[in-house]
């Protein structure tokens, strides 16, 4: 028990921190929130006016048997009803409005933050998990704001209001009712600690369940081909059972706690009947007061019960908010410099000077790499698998930051540019092409939305894509499904060329696809590539001998170090690796 208490103290501390942060999101809507609270206050007052008016009618009119004045009270009652109607509508609408706005802010903030995350973040975090943060967790938080947090004011006002009225009606009776409170407090504490534990565990299971579900949906063909249906169903069931167990546990606590409030309520009412009835007999108290008091007392416990229900919503939301904030607190690993150099359009000189890079610790993937490319020159990078070719490109795009040395474009270190400025001047054509759902047209003009259809067609023609696009049922308007499944590898590659050409960068980086396309396309791709590098500074990871023919300089990487580097002429004279490659190439033309 004491363990549970200590645990809960720390949690409470943390919860208040989270709570404060969530409240921070309400700040921009401070005026609206204040308005809602005022309206809530008024509405709860109006709702409390009913029994009080009844009391006045009983004590001042019915008991003394005089009806004059009742019509005024009735009119007042009607006014109260109308005001309450308007107030409630405004309250519901405003609360939802604020909730939706906050959800919008939070969701777009999380989304924007995701775009600041480095690639290693996405390597570490499954897609399903991240999607849950942006969609479901934010949704839960909204529920807490709209049906929890703001309405709690309603409960608090009602509670305070009733207490004041009861105190005003008869402070002695109120004192008697107060006898119940310590027990109520004790029950509440006991409930909270346990319910929190169960709810938290439950959320963890929910998250595990969703991850499993997502993974299985994505890999369904594999599951089926390997006949794993039953085994995976069993696994799913076992995770799901644990979730159900916690579900039922928190339900059990709730089922015990909420009715206990009724008992406290009835003890209170009983005490008032016994004690108050006695005082009526002794004529210390009017009948109307006693009736009104009993009516208020019955209402008094409604907000308490209500808050217990909200506790569930809020607890669930706490876990969600914790996870959202955890994501938002993940620092941006590769940040823009505080005072970036102004970059508009670069000429395209690229320089690596004594560059060292390691993904982790000191396991260097690039060692002391130096080379330079002048404007419009092309450089082929060759090397065996794992020699550091892709890493070299990643550092140039600043997907990762180098540890030592400098990378410069037009003499400016890339770390001193805004990432966006840097990347706007680069176009990267990757081996595995990712296509977005949308039509062909939008996929091509990804980097340059202003292009018209004619321009896009010209571009597609230049990189040999027009032919196959023209054969698609809706041509440029053809909808590409998720991941571009309906297109072949080669077609996707050609599309990515068109995409790069449409961005019209000064510097082109091309990771040549290895062997996923056939020879015919190969020829198309080769000619498209020549078009693409025309007049641009280009870095090409070359997997084809024929590619080497068309470049100005060649860099041979071996285990992260430069083995050979120079113009074709220089390297041929050297009679090293490049020379061998070149003679292979010559043979092929026999």
């Amino acid at each position, binding site marked *: 028990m004491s363990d549970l208490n200590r645990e809960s103290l720390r949690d409470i501390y943390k919860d208040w921190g989270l709570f404060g942060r969530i409240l921070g999101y309400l700040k921009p809507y401070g005026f609206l929130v204040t308005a809602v609270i005022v309206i809530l206050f008024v509405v709860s007052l109006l709702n409390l006016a009913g029994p009080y008016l009844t009391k006045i009618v009983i004590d001042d009119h019915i008991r003394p048997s005089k009806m004059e004045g*009742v019509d005024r009270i009735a009119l007042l009652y009607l006014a109260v009803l109308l005001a309450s109607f308007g107030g409630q509508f405004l309250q519901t609408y405003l609360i939802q409005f604020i909730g939706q706005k906050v959800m919008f802010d939070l969701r777009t903030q999380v989304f924007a933050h995701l775009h600041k995350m480095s690639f290693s973040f996405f390597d570490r975090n499954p897609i399903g998990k991240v999607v849950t943060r942006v969609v479901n967790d934010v949704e839960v938080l909204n529920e807490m704001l709209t049906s929890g947090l703001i309405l709690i004011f309603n409960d608090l006002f009602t509670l305070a209001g009733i207490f004041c009225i009861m105190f005003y009606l008869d402070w002695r009776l109120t004192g008697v009712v107060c006898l119940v409170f310590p027990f109520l407090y004790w029950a509440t504490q006991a409930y909270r600690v346990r319910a929190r534990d169960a709810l938290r565990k439950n959320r963890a299971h929910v998250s595990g369940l969703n991850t499993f579900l997502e993974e299985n949906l994505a890999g369904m063909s594999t599951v089926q081909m390997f006949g794993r249906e039953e085994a995976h169903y069993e696994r799913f069931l076992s995770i799901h059972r644990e979730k159900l167990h916690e579900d039922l546990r928190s*339900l059990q606590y709730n089922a015990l706690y909420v009715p206990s409030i009724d008992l406290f309520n009835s003890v209170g009412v009983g005490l008032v009947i016994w004690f108050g009835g006695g005082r009526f*007999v002794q004529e210390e108290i009017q009948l109307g007061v006693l009736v009104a008091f009993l009516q208020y007392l019955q209402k008094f416990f409604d907000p308490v019960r209500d808050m217990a229900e909200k506790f569930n919503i809020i607890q669930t939301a706490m876990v969600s908010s914790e996870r959202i904030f955890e994501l938002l607190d993940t620092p941006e690993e590769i940040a823009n410099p505080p005072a970036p150099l102004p970059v508009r359009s670069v000429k395209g000189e690229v320089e690596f000077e004594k560059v060292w890079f390691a993904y982790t610790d000191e396991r260097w993937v690039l060692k002391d790499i130096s080379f330079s490319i002048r404007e419009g020159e092309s450089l082929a990078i060759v090397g065996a698998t794992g020699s550091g070719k892709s890493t070299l490109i990643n550092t140039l795009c600043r997907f990762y930051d180098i540890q030592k040395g400098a990378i410069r474009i037009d003499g400016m270190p890339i770390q001193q540019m805004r990432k966006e400025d840097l990347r706007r001047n680069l176009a990267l054509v990757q081996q595995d092409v*990712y296509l977005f759902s949308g039509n062909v047209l939008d996929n091509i003009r990804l980097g340059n939305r202003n292009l018209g259809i004619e321009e896009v067609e010209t571009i597609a023609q230049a990189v040999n894509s027009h032919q196959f696009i023209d054969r698609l049922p809706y041509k440029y308007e053809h909808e590409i499904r998720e991941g571009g499944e309906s297109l072949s590898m080669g*077609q996707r590659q050609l599309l990515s060329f068109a995409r790069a050409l449409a*961005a019209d960068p000064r510097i082109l980086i091309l990771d040549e696809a290895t062997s996923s396309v056939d020879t015919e396309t190969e020829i198309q791709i080769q000619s498209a590539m020549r078009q693409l590098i025309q007049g641009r500074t280009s870095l090409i990871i070359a997997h084809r001998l024929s590619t080497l023919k068309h470049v100005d300089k060649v860099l041979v990487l071996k285990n992260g170090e430069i083995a050979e580097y120079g113009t074709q002429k220089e390297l041929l004279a050297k009679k090293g690796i490049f020379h061998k490659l070149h003679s292979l190439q010559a043979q092929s033309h026999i």
Partner: protein
Amino acid sequence: MSWNHLRFFVSYLIKYRIGVGLGILALLLTDFAGLAVPWILKEFVDFLPRSPSQIDLLGFAGLLFAAASIQATGRFGWRKYLFGSSRRVEFDILNRVFGHFLILDRPFFQRLRIGDLMSRATNDLRAVRDFMGLGLLILVDSAVVISACFILMTVINPSLAFWVLLPLPLVSILFFSYVETISRRHREVQEHLSVITERVRENIAGIRVLHSFVQEEHEKEKFRELCREYIIRNLRVTRLFGVFTPALVFTIGISGLISLWIGGRAVIEGSMTLGDFVAFNGYLMQLSWPMMGVGYIINLSQRGLVAVSRIDEILSAEPVIRDRAGAVDPGTLEGGIEFRDVSFTYPAAASPSLIGIDLRVNPGQKLAVTGLIGSGKSTLALLIPRLYEVEEGAILVDGRPVTDYPLERLRRDIGYVEQNPFLFSATLRENIALERPDATREEIDEVIENAGLVPDLARFPEGLDTVVGERGVSLSGGQKQRVALARALIKKPRILILDDAFSSLDAETEEIILKRIHTQVRGITTLIITHRLPVVRDADQIIVLDRGTIMERGTHDELMRVGGLYARTCRNQALAREMEITLQ
């Protein structure tokens, strides 16, 4: 709000009839005890002027406490049983949905996206649960309390009850005019949330491209646009409910006013006791919650029914590909494959992917398939283990149409390795022993050896127990492909389909692996789809596909003599290989 969707609920209600029954019973108990309270208070108020003794007062207090105790017990009961049942129903439905996912086929998963399916399995399911738990509770509660209050009020004072209850039909008018609109607007909200989910998913999946093309701002703007639309749709629902619930409260208030007006007069005229008046008002006040409940129920049931229809769309989806009635399992396959005039068009595709394919591969033979972009190579492979169903012509395995086999047999004896294999976030061992979790150490070692994974495993500190990140992100492309091969080999398949399965490996390694498979796994029929022709020189048969038809066919030597596309490609590739060797 069709009958079908209600039937969906009813079937689960029947399944949990005991829990639900107990819950409803407890709820009735709660309601009746709750209704007794104003009655006791009425008696108390009427009794007061007769100067009750301490004992009498204690009696009233005790009576009240007893009623409250019953009420509390009932409350516990319905919470535990009604809500408990709704959790179990949720549990059952999700299990059923997951179970159904497992039997659905590729055409289905191509139609509905993962983000959308996830949204149905989580958000929509929650709506269903709320309807089953809260909805049922409020439905019963409202019905009981409303009718009991009507009756009791009528018993106390029939004419007063008539006047007081007169404004209430307003509620039903409100009810019917809103139902339709509300359901439509709810659906719009839920559909839009699916769109948002899908957008986020795609953004993350394609984040590398988006960043290299500096599309962050554009994507953020598009996302903001979606979220703005979401606000609008949500507020449309709010506007309706914002009116609905206060209108109910207002109606009750009007009744209260009438009661005060007419009832007060009646007390003064002496046709009604003060106690009756207090009780009458007490019951009227008890009506306000169930009346609000009516609004809540509409909300819950609309959401619930929309959600059910979305879940039902999954559950009622029939897999096209399944065991034909009377499919007999003939035991382990021998491995002969035959295509008889097979043509195939993908669902929703404009042109056929395969046209009139005739092909015969004897058990133990090696068939190589190569060809141009989109020529139908992968399609040909997908049809053999029935990942898609052939509509024209027939595919035979060991002389029997594939449709005559139970799916399980085909899939057990056919190993299929894709270019982009899907790995599970589990250990390497679990991924390799996917089909046979009971595989022995020796069996695993053997397939690791055959898949050429031994040197890679040596580099992982935890060896086979290394956990692969989601979809194998922590492995290189070549490693993923070989893990996929290993997990196919451990099935001891009779037919092995390698669909460009080694594209991320160098040619040398590919050749070594292929050789090893053929020497180690005797009599296995292999179908290799590749662009690397040198590695399939020794195939028994090589076919070159072009736009769905077989353009060249023969052995390596025959095709080289013909001097067509195959011969040309082959020569180019031999060269590329030399290059690789030089660089090593």
